[in-house]
């Protein structure tokens, strides 16, 4: 049985359609990329799964229907979230940002959890007392991922983690993501415009266009597909 299952998802904003007829599954420990250009419906899909927007269709996690739960309840089922644009709490310190991420866990667990995240991202440890708003874009992204990991999720959803970052930083974040996924046994849903990078990190991918699914399949095969290469990889 898949860990996450999305069926016939439809998100609307008044007359505007965010996504329609979107469906896919993610298995335990698997990375799935959700690829599409600006406005394709990636964020709408992630927000629906998390309960940030209302939707038609069905989302189940570990067999449990998530409809009607608010985000603070959905995340307690084991779904971590790093939002588009990072959205760190700018005036809180790096450490306090991580603590907020761990707010759903027993207090006693936090120090060990924080040390673990500092292990993945040593830069965060160096800057632990600094206001998150004063970090560089790459550091803020690391913090957003670290914050999402604080709740010990079994699935982590990342909304455009590469957005606006220099290629070296993007590469570095990709390496750490792979490491984290191995050690934590995580499932990952990676929403990205940077298709080459996302496909290189995932096993399977869903390609969205104008709110609908354009293609799905193995990441490797999609990387070789002439149409995908032309439309999304700029090759």
């Amino acid at each position, binding site marked *: 049985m898949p860990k996450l299952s999305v069926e016939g998802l439809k998100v609307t904003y008044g007359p505007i359609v965010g996504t329609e007829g979107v469906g896919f599954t993610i298995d335990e420990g698997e990375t799935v990329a959700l690829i599409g250009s600006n406005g394709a419906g990636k964020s709408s899909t992630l927000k629906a799964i*998390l309960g*940030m927007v209302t939707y038609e269709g069905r989302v189940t996690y570990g067999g449990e229907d998530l409809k009607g739960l*608010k*985000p*603070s309840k959905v*995340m*307690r089922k084991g779904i971590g*979230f790093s*939002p588009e644009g990072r*959205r760190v*709490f*700018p*005036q*809180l310190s790096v450490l*306090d940002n991580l*603590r*907020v*991420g*761990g*707010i*759903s866990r027993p*207090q006693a667990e936090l120090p060990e959890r924080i040390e673990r995240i500092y292990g993945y991202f040593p830069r965060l440890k160096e800057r632990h007392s600094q206001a998150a708003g004063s970090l560089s874009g790459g550091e803020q992204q690391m913090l957003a991922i670290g*914050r*999402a990991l604080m*709740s010990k999720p079994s699935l982590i959803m990342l909304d455009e983690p590469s957005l606006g970052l220099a290629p070296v930083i993007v590469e570095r974040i990709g390496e750490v993501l792979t490491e984290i996924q191995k050690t934590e046994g995580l499932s990952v849903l990676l929403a990205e415009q940077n298709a080459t990078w996302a496909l290189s990190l995932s096993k399977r991918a869903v390609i969205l266009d104008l709110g609908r699914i354009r293609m799905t399949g193995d990441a490797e095969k999609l990387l070789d597909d002439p149409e995908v290469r032309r439309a999304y990889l700029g090759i």
Partner: protein
Amino acid sequence: MLDFLSRLEILLNPTVLGQVIVNGISLSAIYILVALGFTLLFGIMRVVNFAHGEFAMLGAFAFYHLTKDLNWPWMIALPAGVIGVAAASLVLEWLVFRWFYQRMFESMIGLLGLNMMLIYGGVLLWDTHERNIPAASQEVLMLGDIIIPIDRLIVVVIALAALTAFYLFIRHTRAGLAMRAAAQDVETAETQGVDTRHIYKVAFFVAILLAALAGSLWGQIYAVSPHLGERPLMMAFIVVILGGMGSIPGAALGGALLGFTESIVGTAFGAAASAFLSFGVVIVLLVFRPWGILGTPEN
């Protein structure tokens, strides 16, 4: 000019100076208590609580009735009244406030209406005559030439203790952390596990608790009437504009500035001069630095 200087000279008299300092501290502490709750409600729920002063009024009446009618000692009546008012106010949170969360403009109008309802509800219940809460102590403390009434000292100590408790709560508890996160970005806080509906209730309770306490202390110094809330609200408003809407250190700084200005200018030149100056500063600040001394500009 000579008159101006001679009025300032009054302040050098040790007895007057002692009073100015004690007044300054107690006024500052009370203004900060009211302003902290006001700024907390704005910072987290984006409501401008024009009814905030009325919770101070309710706190003062609770304290009055518990001490005067039930003869409870003040040490019990004060916390009981304050907690009782805050708990009872949760009904208003459910009936009125929650509909205005994250709706700043509607909240101003709606809560101005609630303000009026509470004032005139108070007039119906208690009419408009002023009542006095018995002083906690009749004794005075002599420090050289400086005379300090003990009941004023009690007010100062309680207010400072409450401010310290609030600071520790915000800095060192989970609920405090959740509030600080929600004040910055409610939507993201919810996705990271903060139950924002619950945190709104906790923030509301704390804000009303502080206002009711400020009102009780205010009633102990001055007098209790249904109009008691107007001045603390006005002062909280100035404090929050001075310090920056939603800024907790700003509320502390603004309250201290206002309390001491009122005490010093009021003693030398009268209450009218101090009010004139305070509101003048607010207007100048709103023109040149609308986000306050310690606030941050909204984008």
